[in-house]
């Protein structure tokens, strides 16, 4: 019991994820800055931002719903943190793996996206409402290709448990090449889920002033940013598990493998945000349904055929 509590609270739980979230945010911002010919922030900048925001007053606007305004920032953090129970982080085994946990992780990440919509809705401000509706339109576009993409390794491994899928793919690394298109789709969908350029449509600072988060301040904003950072780590860890063969059972090797694989994926996401302009919402919807979904379907079909003829 104590060991599990330590795992949940310290490693690879809350404390580790918090520290790594800060590091990844710095890594993302620094790489972004260097690619833009800027100096970029010092390593402790995310910490400083977090502490500063936590110390600030939490203003609840008169028109907003106070209950949800208090609950939602904690809610989104809870949703993304809960995923660590089913997700192998820096090891080859999750804390509590069970059949079907891949869907639980997908559900929890979707719930986090819905929280963003609710945040916009209950802030009750024109900018936040438009941002919230955009978040929902964006969600129904990228969720489908994302789910198809993570379905591919599940079909190949014949399991619904991330731990088992990872173990199976680690034993058959050749399959990783077959599901490369799925990885690309998942990366694009993840970028849309994290609402980063070119898919930062719900937040679009220059159009709707930060969208759903426009009214947030102080603690709420700090928790929201932290949740987004952790969501990014959870997302890339999920992809590293499903598409890059997961992490070694050896603790030290596993940790190194975890850092290398997640940072590579984060760097790809950063590069994507450096070289592209923001798309419009209808361009995103068309792109997702006309391009990503058909490719994802073909990928799933290939996975089914391989599973049926070759692997049995």
């Amino acid at each position, binding site marked *: 019991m104590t060991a599990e509590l330590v795992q949940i609270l310290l490693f690879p739980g809350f404390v580790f994820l918090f520290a790594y979230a800060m590091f990844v945010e710095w890594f993302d911002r620094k790489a972004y800055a260097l*690619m*833009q*010919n*800027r100096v970029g922030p010092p390593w402790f900048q995310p910490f400083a931002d977090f502490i500063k925001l936590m110390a600030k007053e939490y203003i609840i606007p008169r028109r907003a719903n106070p209950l949800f305004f208090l609950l939602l920032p904690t809610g989104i953090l809870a949703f993304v943190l809960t995923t660590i129970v089913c997700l192998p982080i820096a090891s080859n085994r999750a804390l509590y793996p069970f059949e079907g946990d891949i869907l639980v992780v997908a559900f929890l990440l979707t719930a986090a996206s819905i929280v963003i919509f609710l945040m916009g809705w209950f802030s009750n401000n*024109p*900018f936040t*409402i*438009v941002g919230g509706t*955009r978040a929902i339109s964006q969600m129904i576009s990228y969720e489908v290709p994302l789910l198809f993409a993570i379905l591919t390794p599940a079909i190949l491994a014949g399991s619904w448990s991330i731990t088992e899928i990872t173990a199976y793919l680690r034993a058959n690394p050749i399959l990783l090449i077959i599901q490369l298109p799925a990885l690309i789709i998942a990366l694009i969908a993840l970028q849309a889920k994290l609402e980063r*350029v*070119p898919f*930062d*449509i719900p937040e*679009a*600072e*220059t*159009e*709707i*002033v930060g969208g759903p988060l426009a009214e947030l301040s102080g603690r709420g904003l700090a928790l929201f940013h932290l949740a987004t950072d952790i969501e990014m780590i959870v997302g890339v860890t999920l992809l590293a598990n499903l598409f890059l063969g997961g992490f070694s059972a050896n603790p030290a090797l596993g940790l190194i493998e975890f850092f290398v694989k997640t940072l590579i994926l984060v760097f790809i996401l950063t590069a994507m945000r*450096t*070289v*592209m*302009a*923001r*798309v*419009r*919402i*209808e*361009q995103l919807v068309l792109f997702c349904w006309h391009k990503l979904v058909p490719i994802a379907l073909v990928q799933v079909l290939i996975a089914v055929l391989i599973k049926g003829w070759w692997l049995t």
Partner: protein
Amino acid sequence: MAEVKIPIGPQHPALEEPELFLLTVDGEEIVKAEMRIGYNHRGMEKSAEFRTFLQTLYLFERICGICSHSHTTCYILAVEEVAGLEIPERAKFIRTLVGELERIHSHLLWLGIAGHEIGFDTLFMYSWRDREFVLDILEEITGNRVNYGINTIGGVRRDIPEGKIDDYLKALDILEERCQYYAKLAFEEGTLAARLSGVHYLSKEKAIELCACGPMARASGVATDVRFEEPYLVYDQIPFNLVTYDSGDIFGRTVVRVLEVIESIKIARYCLQNMPPGEYRLEKVPKKIPEGEAFSRYEAPRGEDVHYVRSDGGENPYRAKVRAPTMQNLLATMESLKGSYIADAPIAIASMDPCFSCTDRIALVRDIRSGKESRIRFRDLSKYGKGGER
């Protein structure tokens, strides 16, 4: 759902100056666009009447932070016409040079802002980095990065440092290379074209009808440029091309501006290489300008700038009137906003390269709750100023 009104401004991350655009939206589409200007009124035309011609020059330098040289040159051309002064050839070349460098810096600034509006911050950082080349040259020539203060009645205040010309030419070469790269990028990079093509369309007929000017009109295929139509300074001696593009959308405006930067670099290079020797300002300039009036046109980076100056024979201008290019482009911008998406509104407003502080001529006070506007007559205002009845 009830109609949602999205206010862009007076305070908004997409705007550099306070100005209100009230967009009525249906989902993501704009069905009605209203605007309210007048947050930046500074009463410059009136205060010009209490200053001498030379002091007014420095006042007009501050109409706009970006096209400061355009306003002073336009004003000074009118003043010199009234006074009947013929300035030395070298002064004309220096004025042209600074004007073109200013155009380069203004267009690169716009390119960066446009990149920022569409969430392309990398373009923003790159173009502003390259803009430093021009700002450095301007600082060396004039002593200032903006608000150069190089014009004076009867010439310019400073000469070009002789030994530095090669350095300037070298910097311009690097800049031209970069701009060629941006032009290539604009045509080849997919997301930029996808984001800007067909957005905020302004047809050629509408552009003429609504009196659009500058890059906005040229992007709609209207070949209008004061430097061609009515050459001032030394533009009749310099070979350069008029850039037009006929797509009429924001993509066209981007292309026009980037290509204009390349043309401006050529003009600046020509000016540096063919700078005639001699004096750069008149020895003696009359303090009192003889009675008369003049009207001058100038192609500012944002479009046609117009100044009218009237003298009654005294030391102060009797009337100085400024019409900045933004004023002309506002109508066309608001017209084209209808039917586009909210996502496009900031870049659409930015695409005319607005400069609202140049535009405002009046300040109206409105009670937010009742919606009533109150006006104050000049007579009452002067009483108010003297501390009389309110």
